[in-house]
């Protein structure tokens, strides 16, 4: 187990800055997800923690110690990659035993730990078979088991579930969480899938173009994104973000969108904007489940009307795509109201609206409760 401090780390490849001035504190035993779109620098960050890449500037401390001169194999870090990296010509047993054998553990110890791990991973009946005979799902379990068995103090996982089918992915998510809790290891998990990050991690670091956008607990980043990027990236179905210009006419504010739609800015979101007087352009954010269909919940709620384009079933819910004067809103249709082609009234819950500065993307005003 180990804490990790990433201190003002920059990594450049020629003129390209893959990571810029990254600061991140990871406590001992914490499960942290590095989340971002492809090419955002999350894997480069992980490679620097692993020691596969050296930072161009800044330093990374493990329990307060700089390990940059320690050999990678002596850092006691376990890896799981997207592409398994297992020995397909060896048996499942030998794959699991490998990390213990190279550490010259007694034979009985190896056998005991391999059996326990195989049991954990549901691979007991496969121990004597060649790894090449395993299914894709079993291979990934083996890859995770093989790294976990040596009980590294830091466990790094790079998109370990992205090759798996959806049902198995959901199952492995729960498995990983239990595993981490049992072993108490510090885990760093790289993913572009925000559902994985939300469900697994104690904390999420959201990275875009090499820069840290926000670092916090899953519900904190979901409920209180500090900028437009995080608001857009975290949450599924995604947050509605409407870009427009703030106009103040006769004391009442409204957001005017290019397509001609005007959204009155009442309630808390109005106050948020009023405190940023210089703002001209902004984005209004509202999550699909915070749009009410059919009836008004609160007098401050913002009324709009539009045409239902499509209705999708997403698990137990239906998701409606509503176009109001050329601007599309996604709304959760809890009560199966919507049919494509119909005109509807809908309301944005004023208390849940968020405002983002049009120039900087920064969040304006206070937190949402």
């Amino acid at each position, binding site marked *: 187990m180990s804490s990790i401090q990433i201190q003002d780390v920059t990594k450049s490849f020629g003129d390209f800055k893959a990571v810029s001035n990254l600061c991140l504190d990871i406590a001992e035993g914490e499960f942290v997800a590095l989340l971002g779109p492809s090419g955002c620098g999350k894997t480069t960050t992980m490679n620097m923690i692993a020691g596969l890449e050296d930072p161009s500037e800044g330093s990374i401390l493990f329990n307060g110690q700089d390990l940059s001169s320690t050999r990678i194999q002596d850092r006691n870090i376990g890896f799981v990659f997207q592409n398994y990296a297992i020995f397909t010509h060896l048996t499942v047993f030998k794959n699991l035993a490998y990390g213990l054998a190279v550490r010259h553990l007694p034979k009985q110890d190896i056998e005991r730990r391999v059996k326990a791990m195989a049991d954990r991973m549901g691979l007991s009946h496969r121990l004597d078979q060649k790894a090449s005979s395993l299914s894709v799902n079993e291979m990934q379990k083996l890859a995770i088991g093989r790294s976990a068995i040596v009980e590294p103090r830091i466990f790094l996982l790079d998109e370990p579930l992205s090759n798996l089918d959806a049902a198995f992915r*959901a199952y492995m998510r729960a498995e990983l969480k239990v595993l981490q809790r049992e072993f108490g290891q510090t885990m760093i998990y790289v993913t572009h899938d925000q*559902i994985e990050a939300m469900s*697994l991690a104690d904390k999420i670091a959201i990275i875009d173009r090499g820069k840290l956008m926000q670092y916090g607990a899953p519900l904190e980043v979901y409920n209180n994104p500090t900028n437009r990027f995080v608001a857009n990236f975290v*949450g599924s179905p995604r947050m509605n973000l409407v870009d427009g210009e703030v106009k103040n006419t006769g004391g009442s504010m409204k957001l005017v969108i290019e397509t001609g739609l005007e959204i009155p800015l009442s309630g808390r979101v109005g106050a948020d904007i009023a405190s940023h007087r210089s703002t001209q352009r902004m984005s209004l954010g509202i*999550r699909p489940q915070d749009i009410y269909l059919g009836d008004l919940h609160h007098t401050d709620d913002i009324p709009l009307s539009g045409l239902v384009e499509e209705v999708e079933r997403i698990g137990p819910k239906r998701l409606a795509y509503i176009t109001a004067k050329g601007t599309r809103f996604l709304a*959760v249709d809890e009560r199966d109201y919507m049919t494509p082609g119909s005109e509807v009234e809908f309301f944005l819950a004023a208390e849940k609206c968020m405002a983002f500065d049009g120039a900087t993307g920064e969040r304006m005003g206070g937190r949402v409760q």
Partner: protein
Amino acid sequence: MNAIEINGASKRYPNFTLGPIDLAIGEGEFFGIFGPPSSGKTSLLKLILGLVELDRGRVALGGTDSARLAVSQRGISMVFQNLALFPNMSGRENIIYPLTERKASKSEIDARLDAVAEVLHISHILHKNPAQMSGGERQRIALGRALAVKGRAILLDEPVSALDARLREEMRIELKRLQRMDKQTFVYVSNDEEEVMAVSDRVAIMDHGQIIQVGPPDEIYNRPNSISVAKLVGSPPMNLFPGHLSDDGERFESPSFTMSLDFPRTAHAGAAATLGVRPEDIHQTSDTGAACPGIAVSSTEPLGSHTIVNATIGGRLVKIRTSGRVIGASELGTHVSFDQRRLHLFNADGERI
């Protein structure tokens, strides 16, 4: 008339048998095919494309046996998972390729290119080569190429699976919009259940080379005809409890609870059965009666709009989806009730009863 009609089609492979398949896909329908890996989804597409010599049965396209149609008359285009764009051609050249191959007139090519580019919002990338495009842009070009020729149907084999999650969500509504506007028949294959259920008018669920249920997404979700379908559709999957029906068929009895049914299943009275309940149909309760099993919570996954709770009932793992936004382990209580109107019962053979 049906765009595609398959009657009793089957094909034996060394380790796998496809079919027999009976399926009719209507004109202008957005038809989804979903199943686990190697369940036969891609084989079924190949069968529709005419790439498979059938052992039995026939495939009719627009009412004509496809065996009697030359490939050029079949009017079926396909979008592959790996897109298969020509790397040395621009977006524009890729899209018009099937038209120039057919020696279409310049005015026809221009008109079709304009129409496709407008729907797909790709006018600004037509001059680029695939290598200069993002994943989503390449995806649109591949779709554009399939749409350029007005055909009988477009087959899409996991067309968005290579994209990241956010882009996937956006592309699927674009696809749906496109299909509506063009009134094309789409056959869409995916191993992502959420995606296929979201876009399709009807879905075929495949397993072991067979179609095990066909219907609108709502029907498949609300009334899966078998345990196999129940397990495949829904995320997290349906919770299943083995047990049996009481002698009068009015209750379901398991080691950890006894539950009255919404209507008696007298035909199956006393028989072994499995009770299924979806994660969102389990609710906390203060009632500790026999119908309300005790739970032990092991972990929670807060997902923002809802929370997934991992728990056990009588030692069996269950997943509960709470509608509340934030929920801690202490708020869950010790007992739960199942929504009685939304229970699923299956017999010993796994069929819905």
